[in-house]
């Protein structure tokens, strides 16, 4: 099944403006149940064609949503901390997209996996949007914990848990889309691609953890 999205005149997907459903290019495991029209469904919907500007907007929305989690983390110290956290929470997503995703594309290319740059780019944009959405959803809970936990360690633990869960959901989405694209490929290639995406996932987790722990004041980073 596929989420309903609203195609606009210029081919962009309208955020929160549902209309006729678009048939999916290749359904992924994430499109499991029918969805009522919603802004969320439109944000995460697959489209039959690749439009770079649409994917860029989707990616930017993901970053914006992730920044709200940063604002929630900044509530512990207030003031400049709001801005610092709001800036550095999405920075890990940018870093993974800028450094990790091209490497994943090259590695899959060396394996001769039948997946093009457009598919990787749109899958990455959707993964970023998914991560941002989960972070935004967890923001109120994170604010509760970081403001009301007396021990700094507990606040940091709660903040890290949200970042970890959202990051895993984004990576899960990307892995699922790569797997779906390689469904018709030989078993050996699928296995090698799965190992490659696992390596990418480990790299992404390590990179994001490095950035967040060195940049977010709540996690012991710069103050």
């Amino acid at each position, binding site marked *: 099944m596929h*989420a309903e999205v609203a195609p606009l005149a210029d081919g962009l997907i309208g955020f929160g403006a549902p209309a006729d459903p678009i048939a999916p290019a290749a359904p992924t*495991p*994430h*499109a*499991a*149940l029918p*969805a*009522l*029209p*919603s802004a*969320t*469904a439109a*944000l*995460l*919907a697959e489209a039959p064609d690749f439009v770079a500007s649409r994917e860029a907007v989707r990616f930017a929305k993901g970053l914006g949503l992730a920044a709200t989690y940063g604002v929630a983390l900044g509530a512990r110290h207030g003031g400049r901390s709001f801005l610092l956290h709001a800036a550095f929470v999405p920075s890990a997503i940018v870093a993974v997209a800028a450094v990790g995703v091209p490497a994943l594309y090259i590695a899959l290319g060396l394996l001769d996996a039948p997946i093009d740059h457009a598919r990787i780019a749109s899958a990455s944009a959707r993964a970023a949007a*998914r*991560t941002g*959405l*989960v*972070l*935004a*959803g*967890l*923001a*109120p*809970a994170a604010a*509760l*914990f970081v403001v*009301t*936990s*007396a*021990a700094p360690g*507990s606040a940091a*633990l*709660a903040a890290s848990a949200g970042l970890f*869960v*959202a990051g895993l*959901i*984004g990576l899960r*989405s990307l892995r699922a889309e790569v797997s779906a694209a390689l469904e018709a490929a030989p078993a050996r290639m699928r296995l090698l691609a799965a190992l490659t995406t696992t390596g990418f996932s480990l790299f992404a987790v390590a990179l994001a953890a490095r950035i967040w722990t060195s940049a977010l004041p709540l996690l012991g980073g710069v103050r």
Partner: protein
Amino acid sequence: MIGADSAPITPDPSSAAGVLRRLLRAPGDVAVACREDRDTHAIVAVSLVAILVGATVFGGTIGSFRGGRQIPYAAIKLPLAMLATLAISAPAFHALAAGLGRAWPMRAVVALALAAAGRSALVLLAISPVLWLIYDLGLGYHAASLAASLAYGVAGLAALGVVLRGLGEGAGQKLTALAFAGVFFAVGGQASWILRPYLVRPRTEHIPFVRGLEGGFLDSLGRSTRSAAGVYDDDGRIPADRPVDAPKLLDRDSQ
């Protein structure tokens, strides 16, 4: 006199009585209605009333273990904690459901969460008289605490049934339900921690409406885990500079 040909009274399914009946007897129907955005207003209204009534009565029952002012205190705080938990958890439920393959409108997820909480509150309402009676018969503090926890557990199962049915079959159903439960447990724990105490020993003289933060839910969880493993953060002795009968010490015995 009821005749053999008298038909059972079935209320309009979208009326308040009809929704209440469905919430108790056909939770799957309510869950699907939430997902499909049908009867949402009625479901939300009935669930909110159920939460308010059920949690207030259950809170008062827990407060009756100590009696006096603790009855209204707990009766006020329990629905507050429950509603605060739902308000904070609902965006997370929405985002987690979307992230794990169910990109539903926020209103559908909120309705589902309220319906689940409403059903669990009805279970708490039903358990309250039994709990009150066993408290009144002189249950000990730890047994009273365990009995309240068991009641919560049964109510939680009733809510879980609605959530699982609402999520429907398909990939990620159990993972999404697990994520919901994790968020609800964590947020509920912290919200309840802020508003504690609820269950207070009868001998306690001074009852605060809420206690100071003194750590948090996660700190408490960590401390309990460490002590379960035999690692104690202190040696259990009362500090020499603190009188034994100080009210603060007695308050520590309450949850």
